[in-house]
């Protein structure tokens, strides 16, 4: 790999949402959601062929709006969730929905003439995670280990646990947790922990990181002032159940041992710009 030239893939719109297709075990495949206020937004399915060091792509239309967050089902590789902004009546509303990709995706080489853009296929809407009563959706988390029937959506200061029924066509809120406090509290991001039997998830709001227990929907621990400025993203170490990484506007990446949240285990200050996301490399 090191000998090969880097592979670059360009999108025509700005994009903020990216996820790996977790259920796909054979190929290295990513999903990217674009952000455009004017045009039809797209989801790019990018497959990286590491033997030939080339990229294959597929473009799917996402007509509902610009995509702010994207999540792939860990059980069914054709199923994904998006959080998107919908502009209607000069109002911007954030929604979340479950989608199915068309199953007959012809993979085409990135290098080939871009003729798929002429008739891109559209996503099939499975159901809305209708959380408008709770607020604007920030992100949707899939249950990491399960059968892909449960998701959590974060909307403003609520965390909603959904049960997806009837092969994803119906979604029902099974329980909710609400972050109480003064001011307008808003979750910025979250992650569902793959440990502890998938019974915990963590959220970030302002400079604090909180962890929640799904069974009681109550807070387990809270890292106040985890970062000097806004916490942008966090992730669990997939192999070590107590380790958590976070990043924020203060240009720092911090690693936490959740058994002792007073001090970070390690702090990286090598970045010179605000950090948006952080991922653990799965092998660590």
């Amino acid at each position: 790999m090191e000998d090969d030239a880097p592979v670059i893939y360009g999108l025509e719109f700005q994009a903020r949402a990216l996820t790996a297709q977790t259920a796909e075990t054979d190929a290295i495949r990513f999903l990217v959601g674009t952000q455009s206020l004017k045009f039809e937004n797209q989801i790019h399915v990018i497959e990286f062929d590491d033997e030939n060091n080339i990229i294959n792509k597929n473009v799917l239309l996402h007509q509902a709006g610009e995509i702010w967050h994207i999540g792939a089902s860990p059980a069914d590789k054709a199923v994904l969730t998006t959080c998107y902004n919908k502009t209607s009546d000069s109002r911007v509303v954030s929604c979340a929905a479950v989608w199915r990709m068309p199953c007959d995706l012809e993979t085409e080489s990135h290098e080939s003439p871009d003729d798929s853009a002429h008739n891109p296929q559209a996503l099939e809407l499975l159901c809305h995670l209708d959380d408008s009563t709770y607020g604007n959706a920030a992100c949707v988390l899939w249950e990491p280990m399960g059968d892909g029937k449960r998701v959590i959506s974060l909307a403003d200061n609520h965390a909603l646990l959904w049960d997806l029924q009837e092969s994803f066509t119906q979604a029902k809120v099974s329980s909710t947790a609400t972050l109480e406090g003064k001011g307008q509290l808003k979750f910025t991001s979250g992650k569902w922990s793959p440990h502890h039997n998938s019974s915990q998830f963590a959220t970030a709001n302002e400079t604090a990181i909180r962890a929640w227990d799904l069974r009681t929907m109550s807070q387990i621990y809270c890292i106040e002032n985890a970062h000097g400025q806004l916490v942008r993203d966090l992730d669990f170490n997939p192999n070590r159940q107590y380790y958590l990484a976070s990043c924020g506007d203060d240009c720092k990446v911090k690693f936490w041992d959740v058994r002792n949240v007073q001090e970070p285990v390690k702090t990286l200050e090598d970045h010179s710009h605000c950090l948006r996301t952080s991922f653990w490399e799965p092998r660590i």
Partner: protein
Amino acid sequence: MDVEGDDSALPEDSGRRRKVHGMLKLYYGLNEEGKSNEQPQALDPCDINGPHFDPEIYMNKLRRECTLAELMDQETCMVKQIRSLDSDMQTLVYENYNKFISATDTIRKMKNDFKKMEDEMDCLSANMEAITDFSARISGTLQDQHTQITKLSGVHTLLRKLQFLFELPARLNKCLELQAYSQAVSSHRRARCVLQQYSHLPSFRGIQDDCHAIMDKLAQELRQKFRDGGTSAKDLSECVELLLQLDEPAEELCDKFLSHARSRLESDLQAASPNENISNLTSLPSPTSNADILEFIDRGCNEFVSSLCLVITSYQELFIVHAQSDELLHAFVDDLAACYFSLVERRIQEEKSVGDNSLLVRALDRFHRRLQAVAKLLPGSSVPHHGTEIVIRAATERVKQYLSALQSFYMDSLTDVRQALATPRLSVAGGASHLGGAELLSSLSASILNQIKSVLASVHLFTAKDITFSNKPYFKGEFCSQGVRESLVVSFIKFICQSSRQFCESAGDKGGSTPPILLLLLSRLCLDYETSTISYILTLTDEQFLVQHHTPVTPVTALCAEAREAAQKLLNHYVKVQGLIISQMLRKSVETRDWVNTIEPRNVRAVMKRVVEDATSIDVQVGLLYEEGVRKAHSSDSSKRTFSVYSSSRQQAARYAASYTPSAPLDTNLLSNIHKLFSERIDIFSSVEFNKVSVMTGIIKISLKTFLECVRLRTFGRYGLQQIQVDCHYLQMYLWRFVSDENLVHFLLDEIVGSSAHRCLDPAPMEQSVIEVICERG
């Protein structure tokens, strides 16, 4: 009889006399060299004064050489000289004649006197003979009586002795009754040999037995007394001495003596121990811990050390003949001294107040001095060595205490500074509190420096010349370099740096309780330390303590580097904190507003005014402590500057407006991306320099960057975009003056406007002239 002048009338006589005179001179070795010089002259027969003068030759010579007139003159001259010489001679002869007459008279008188004396001497010798005769006769008669008297006096002495012997038992008994043991023992000792010698005689034997019985009793009593032990050290040693004279076994006595001494000294110690109040054992009033250390050491020395010395001396006097005694004594002294030392050490440890060091130093000095006495008495002893170790430990402990005192003083002054910073802010809003910044800094650094100086002065007492232990090698070398310099001064400076760093680490993420101005102040303090104070303090220390660096010490440069690092870190942190405060405001203002449905902008939003106000007050704050710094050259005319900004921002807005025609979306994105590639990369949280402009630039960079990031996450309506335009123009008008490179502000603000245009549903930018009107009105 020295004749001067020419002597032609008596040339013979004068010549002979001269000859005699010359021969005498020759004999005594006088004028030897002078003579040899004059030899040719003296041999000259024509020299009238010379010894070899020959009148015939002289006359012939005169006659041959001189004219008649000259001869006549010569003749008259010579006659004149002869006449005067004659008269001189006459006077001399007359004087000497008188003397000769008186000498003759004296000799005649002496002759008469001697004759009389001879007669008297004869008479004397006759008398002496008579006396000798009488004396011989008297001694002859007294011979017999003399021998008799001698015999009688011999008998008398013998009888006296016998009487003493016979009276001995009674005398001893009486002594026993009166407890005059020493008298008894000395009496018995005198009689013992005689009694031993004549023990075959029954009467003497009886006396001897009696004496033995009495002496046994006495010994018994002495032993009893010795065993009781309650007597004073002096009594005890006396007791031992007597028992020794009574031929008691020395080893046993030795052991007993030591054990008694030990128990007594231990009771001394117990009484001296601060924790136990045992007053009945000695007169020593037990010092409680509130009695000061000098008093304590004084008592300890007076009681314990002096009795220890007493024991040592008496022991050496009593038992010095025994071979093993020395080791016993050493063990004994070491053992007790160890107890005492542990006591002293405990007391010293209690000495925690760092107010007056001189008391402790004096106490230690006295302690050390008294132990020297032990050293003199017992040369091989390890006691003084241990004593010195205690002193050293106490000194190091003291240094540690001073360090912690300095540290707490530093923290206290920081608290004071915090309070001083907090109070005026409550009463007078704005400027008044900021004016105090520089004064607070100077008073803080002055008070710290004073404190360091006073501590140094206190510690300096340890090395004062009149203190006995100050000439120990430890106090000359290691104490100065390792103790004072390293573990006091250097550690304190390191502590300042470290605590400053802690302000950055803890306060930043957790609550941010440190007021930003304190960070700024500390940063300046550290910087001052780096530039001058550290080297000043270290030079002061080195001078005061004459530090000779045998061991490697922390170099000034390392400390300076550390201080500089701390200053940098503090300043960076200050920038971050202030930047965070402003960004927080900006972020809240962006996030909480519905930008799609906002009304047409009429005013600059209050938040922007607040941002400018805050930036101004920060500028004032920083300006009091840091220099202005260097700006990149910018155009001198501010209005022109505004115009250039206006045009560039308009261009950009226009470009974005154009880009959002559906025909060519890719081109504009590409264009803006290429534009970004070529514009300078901005490090948002980069290190700042130690000047006002750099600090302000850092803060503004952070704030605007956050503003930009927040804008990118929102969706704007037409008026939303216009409001952002107005706000950015307002910021443009006021922020340029704070930063080193105004292009930076331009770039970031353009980026903000560009991003909001990008995120706008209906990007219709506002006319620049309208923006300006609104901004100027605001």
